[in-house]
């Protein structure tokens, strides 16, 4: 994928969807007139790599690590090729800290950090960032609020000032709060008018984790946002914004020693958060099948997500699991995309993803197809999943996946933005540079049996699945019922959770 700088939209950030970097295209209205292949038809032969498998990966640059007396952790890497500087500030405690019914509180607070801070009101703050060609992005993550920025190197001092103002001296102006809240509500309504791929993950999490903080919508909902007042924001900030929560990585064209001194001067006096970071409760795969049908009456195609609880970011088998996921639904020639797009023309894209967090998060298959072929597409996806979970892959497929994963890895750590993000992310999860430096070795060492064993643990069993279907409910009820007990809601409902979730 080309790296495209993400939209400065909380919604896009939340869903990890950059409008330009969406990796699927829409579904056909009519499948090409060709019979589906027999289920036992052998997969097309996988070509062997022609060049020797390169394990030459990338090495994470050595960072200057400084921990200030108040607990702020700094990670600095000099990169002088271009006159740019990038930072990634992670504040532990994101949407998981939202009180029930106040979903979106952490995200809204984060948004307000750039709507007036220090000596600048909201407009002056925007002028300061844009005026020097800076970029600032607030990502309201589930477990951390993330502030990413990119400035020209000559503006490093201003960057430090703006960042420390946001963290230490936000104004939380009442008028700005009211505007940001109203805008967020309109954005959610507008998103429901739009591409369901933007929202299906929110519905899936809400339905799959009904009584866990992982289930709340990070950006909130049309129901929760209007209940959030300035008192809530101030209370949240007092409890959760503080020096002991901050990991700050900076990468670019600067002198590390000088920048460390500047950052210490700017952030060294910041008080710790008022409350200790709440632990995230454990998660586990759910038992049985559960189906959520979200009615979008004008839909001509059905968007579906099928999955269960997956793995932690720190799972010792995470590299092997990712390799296995590549074969299942992580690339163009994956089993899912081959079956649902290339062979049958049921969809324009089918994929699987393993999202990881502090606790086991989700492993989900997603695709979409015209309303009439919903059942056929879901059956095929389930068939691919259960066969793959049972049989694993052959040697040629393993070799191809290893080459692909190794070949596509270095460009993920090419820019200052990417490196800053990675440094903070590793520190947040308590991982070290080996996560990057040992990646190629771990990929190369994977074996067929090893991958199969991990996948049997990580991929959901066919009888234990959460389904979410967004589409024309009138045409889908009978299909949905085939897969398990159905809970129904409307896309126009003001919450992302169904009025009554089935008991687990």
């Amino acid at each position, binding site marked *: *994928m*080309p*790296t495209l*700088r993400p*939209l400065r939209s909380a919604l896009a950030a939340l869903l990890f969807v950059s*409008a*330009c*970097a*969406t*990796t699927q*295209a*829409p579904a*056909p*209205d*009519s499948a*090409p*007139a*060709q019979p589906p292949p027999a289920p036992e038809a052998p997969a*097309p032969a996988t*070509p*062997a*790599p*022609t*060049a020797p498998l*390169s394990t030459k990966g*990338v090495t994470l640059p050595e960072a200057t690590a400084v921990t200030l007396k108040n607990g702020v952790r700094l990670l600095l890497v000099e990169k002088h090729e*271009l006159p*740019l500087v990038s930072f990634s500030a992670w504040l532990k405690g994101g949407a998981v800290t939202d009180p029930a019914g106040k979903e979106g509180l952490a995200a809204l607070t984060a948004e307000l950090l750039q709507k007036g801070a220090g000596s600048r009101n*909201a*407009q002056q703050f*925007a*002028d300061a*960032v*844009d005026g*020097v*060609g800076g*970029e600032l992005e607030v990502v309201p993550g589930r477990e951390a609020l993330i502030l990413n920025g*990119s400035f*020209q190197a000559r503006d490093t001092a201003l960057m430090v000032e703006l960042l420390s103002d946001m963290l230490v001296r936000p104004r939380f102006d009442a008028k700005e709060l009211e505007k940001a809240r109203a805008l967020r509500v*309109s954005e959610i*309504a*507008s998103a429901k*008018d*739009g*591409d369901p791929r933007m929202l299906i993950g929110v519905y899936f999490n809400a339905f799959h984790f009904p009584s866990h903080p992982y289930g709340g919508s990070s950006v909130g909902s049309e129901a929760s946002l209007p209940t959030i007042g300035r008192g809530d924001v101030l209370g949240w900030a007092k409890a959760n914004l503080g020096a002991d929560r901050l990991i700050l990585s900076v990468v670019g064209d600067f002198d590390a020693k000088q920048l460390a001194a500047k950052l210490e001067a700017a952030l060294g006096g910041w008080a710790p958060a008022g409350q200790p970071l709440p632990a995230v409760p454990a998660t586990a795969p759910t038992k049985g099948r559960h189906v959520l049908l979200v009615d*979008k009456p004008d839909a001509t*195609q059905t968007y579906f997500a099928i999955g269960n609880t997956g793995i932690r970011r720190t799972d010792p088998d995470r590299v092997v699991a990712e390799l296995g996921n590549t074969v299942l639904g992580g*690339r*163009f020639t994956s089993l899912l*995309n081959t079956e649902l797009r290339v062979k049958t023309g049921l969809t*324009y894209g089918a994929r699987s993803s393993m999202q990881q967090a502090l606790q086991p998060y989700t492993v989900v298959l997603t695709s979409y197809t015209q309303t009439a072929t919903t059942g056929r597409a879901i059956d095929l996806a389930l068939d691919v999943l259960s066969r793959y979970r049972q049989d694993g892959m052959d040697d040629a497929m393993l070799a*191809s996946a290893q*080459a*692909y994963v190794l*070949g*596509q890895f*270095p*460009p993920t750590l*090419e*820019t200052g933005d990417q490196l800053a993000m990675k440094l903070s992310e590793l520190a947040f999860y308590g991982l070290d540079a080996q996560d990057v430096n040992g990646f190629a070795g771990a990929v190369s060492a994977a074996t067929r049996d090893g991958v199969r064993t991990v996948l049997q643990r990580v991929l959901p069993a066919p009888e234990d699945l959460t389904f979410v279907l967004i589409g024309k409910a009138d045409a889908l009820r009978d299909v949905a019922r085939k897969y398990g007990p159905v809970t129904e809601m409307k896309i126009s409902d003001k919450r992302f959770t169904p009025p009554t979730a089935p008991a687990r």
Partner: protein
Amino acid sequence: MSRPPLSWFACLALLGAPQAGAQAVPEPSAKPAAASTPAAKLGSDIQARTLKNGLTVIVWPDHDIPNVALANWFRVGSRNERPGITGLSHFFEHMMFNGAKKYGPGQFDRVMEANGGANNAFTSEDVTVYLDWFPSSALPLILDLEQDRLQSLAFDPKVIESERGVVYSERRSGVDNDNGGALQEQMQATAFVAHPYQIPVIGWPSDIESWRMEDLQRYFKTYYAPNNATLVIAGDVEPARVFEQVEATLGTIPSQPAPEPVRTQEPEQQGERRIVVKRLAQSPLLQVAYHGLSANDPDAETLELLGLILTHGDSSRLHRKLVDEARVAIRVRGTTAGGFDPTLTWFYVDLPPGGDLAKTEALLTSELARVAKDGVTDAELKKARNVALATFWRKLETNDGRARELGNAATFRGDWKALLDAPTRYEKVTLDGVKALAARIFNPDHRTVGWLVPTTDSATPVRQETAR
């Protein structure tokens, strides 16, 4: 494995960075940038060569990561189409992945991925671009794959028919969720009455259904010729070796007579045009498009900076007025990028559910009139220069960005060196220039206004540009 659903131009709009622009007829080389500028220093290792068959090859070596980005630019897009064959350029983009002589159907992707590579492609009004990203050790194989499909693409009637279905469905896909695309298609078809920029990149439905084999073969022979392409390779390579390898592969493909130029020029618009599109929706949309500039227009950078002042970031004039102060809109975007010929300068405004289109349009119009009458401030011009410069540097941070930007400059300005001169060109933009251009472009008689009005019926959307 993406076939990004948004147009290239829309992407640039979303990124708040209008694309640098364009030129149909290559000019003699511009003066190289003074080697003293940081940009020239950065690009000092770039080498370019035109092979005997007319293929231009540009190489930007950089050994930071053991990877390469390859972009092969063909000067063909919907601009080269006519009624009856609209959408053909985009169809070719699909066909280029469906098998050739040595690597049969599906093999292009399978072989590339088995060797660590990934790919994509996009089609616009002006160009079709094929992108590969791979470890540098795979370069010989990638060139073999590219040569196979460029030299001997398969025209299997069965594959054509099934791909016709795929493309047709692609046109109809997202019916319920691409209201912006539906409005944009109607806007473009209304704003241009003569020039083929009126044609949607994905093609009109009846044409998608009726291309013939001979249309395809003729089109392929005409436009998919080495003399109609620019190949850019950026990353962990040695230029001399790359030139040898390309010479031995793509260099053997025979050149073709130059394609017929696009002669039609859009006549001057004599008054505002208005359209309404009714679609099932909660949120109204407003689009306003003025006849703008071609990419190689001497005022291209002036227009780019003006566009940034109006729509880039929370401090931009239109965001501040429409979203922040009047609160009639939830999002404002704009694009100013030119093509081989003068394109449209667009404003896209998303309204909240129940939003007031008339009021929003009036505010937008008065803001544009204000900038035409009073110009912009010195601080705004400085800001726009800084944004453009920072964006320039950010784009050159990756091999992929370098391949795209070099290809863009070579294709649209006729000389890759124009890329490195961009910072200098931004410096030359003046306050008076911005004001004069605003007055010229934001002429109410030269605009098309589109409203998307929410209703209970649905229609069919389309995208300005579709990717594989």
